[in-house]
């Protein structure tokens, strides 16, 4: 509502400023001889819209608040997907590199683990932008959780909710199951397997396949690479096997 009022006031200034002042003058217009015209126009047009004078400055905050509120809503797929897709040309044009994140595991391995393996003997510093990208992901997700958080639980489909309950997961309030992914649960068999073995397979599998969801599924499919399509079929072979057969056993 506030946004609508502010937007109409803004449009009034852009397209019908003088008229707004005139209409406003006929009503309860405060004398604003010292204030700049622009502000006077905004405030009088706000009067016209039934907003008491004095709200004009606050309306700027209202716009900011509405913007924050808008960003804080969970984003639908048709907003998020295309922006993720834009990572492809942005990487190519701005960085002259292909989009991919799992390489960061390799760079960190080459940088931190002393070894004598051919696969890790390369100039990882030339790819350090990839690690800076990771720092950005950490920062962006921190900001999202800190300033743009929404309290609503993830809007899972009803079928997914009942399946979660069947799997014995009761707490669906967070982004990840709090009863499985927490430091104090590392003593549990399920948590240990899912994080330790799961993390290991992600690192091993992405290097063996030569990419992950970003490098193969998004970047690779974007330029019609057959190996990427084969890799995505692999992702789903493993994912379906885990989700349908192995995970219910692990969570038992």
């Amino acid at each position, binding site marked *: 509502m506030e946004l609508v009022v502010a937007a109409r006031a803004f449009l009034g200034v852009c397209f019908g400023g003088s008229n707004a002042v005139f209409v406003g003058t006929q009503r309860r217009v405060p004398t604003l001889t010292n204030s700049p015209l622009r502000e006077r126009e905004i405030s009088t047009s706000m009067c016209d819209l039934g907003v008491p004078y004095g709200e004009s400055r606050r309306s700027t905050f209202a716009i900011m608040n509405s913007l924050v509120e808008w960003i804080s809503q969970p984003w639908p797929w048709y907003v998020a997907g295309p922006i993720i897709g834009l990572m492809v040309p942005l990487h190519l044009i701005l960085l002259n590199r292909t989009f991919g994140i799992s390489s960061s595991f390799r760079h960190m391995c080459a940088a931190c683990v002393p070894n004598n393996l051919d696969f890790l003997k390369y100039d990882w510093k030339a790819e350090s932008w990839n690690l800076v990208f990771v720092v950005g992901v950490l920062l962006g997700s921190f900001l999202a959780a800190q300033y743009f958080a929404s309290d609503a639980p993830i809007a899972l489909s009803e079928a997914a909710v009942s399946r979660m309950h069947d799997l014995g997961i009761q707490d669906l309030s967070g982004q990840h199951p709090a009863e499985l992914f927490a430091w104090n649960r590392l003593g549990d068999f399920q948590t240990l397997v899912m994080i330790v073995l*799961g993390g290991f397979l992600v690192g091993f599998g992405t290097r063996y396949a030569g990419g992950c969801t970003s490098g193969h599924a998004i970047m690779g499919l974007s330029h019609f690479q057959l190996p990427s399509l084969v*890799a995505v079929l692999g992702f789903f072979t493993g994912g379906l096997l885990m989700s349908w057969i192995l995970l219910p056993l692990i969570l038992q």
Partner: protein
Amino acid sequence: MKNVIALILGTAFGLILVKAEVLSWFRIQEMFAFQSFHMYGIIGSAVAVGALSVFLIRTFKVKSLEGNVIELADKAPRYKSAYLGGTLFGLGWAMTGACPGPMYALIGSGTTVMILAVVMGILGVLAYAALRDKLPH
């Protein structure tokens, strides 16, 4: 300059991963159970936008910021490793509920136990590096 750009792109990507719930274990399970269109919509529309961009970049011979015409190298035609490695990654993806990007985003947004998953991922790379010659590619 490159680092500044990478930082900005990364920040935007991290924000999206959280706000579109891509980093959620629940969403990944829902995807593998074919119980929602959400994740398919995201990946599908991302590929559509990516493919259109690549097409335009190639058609108009767009130059990168560095000034050279952008050329995309083909991925190495190793299908066994793509499938087998992909399958191993898929197992890990469905277990942790996160591929590498979301792993970082989970850490940033407070599920810090995923640091352990990243450390294990790095050890996974080390294991691959050690076994590479013995694996079918």
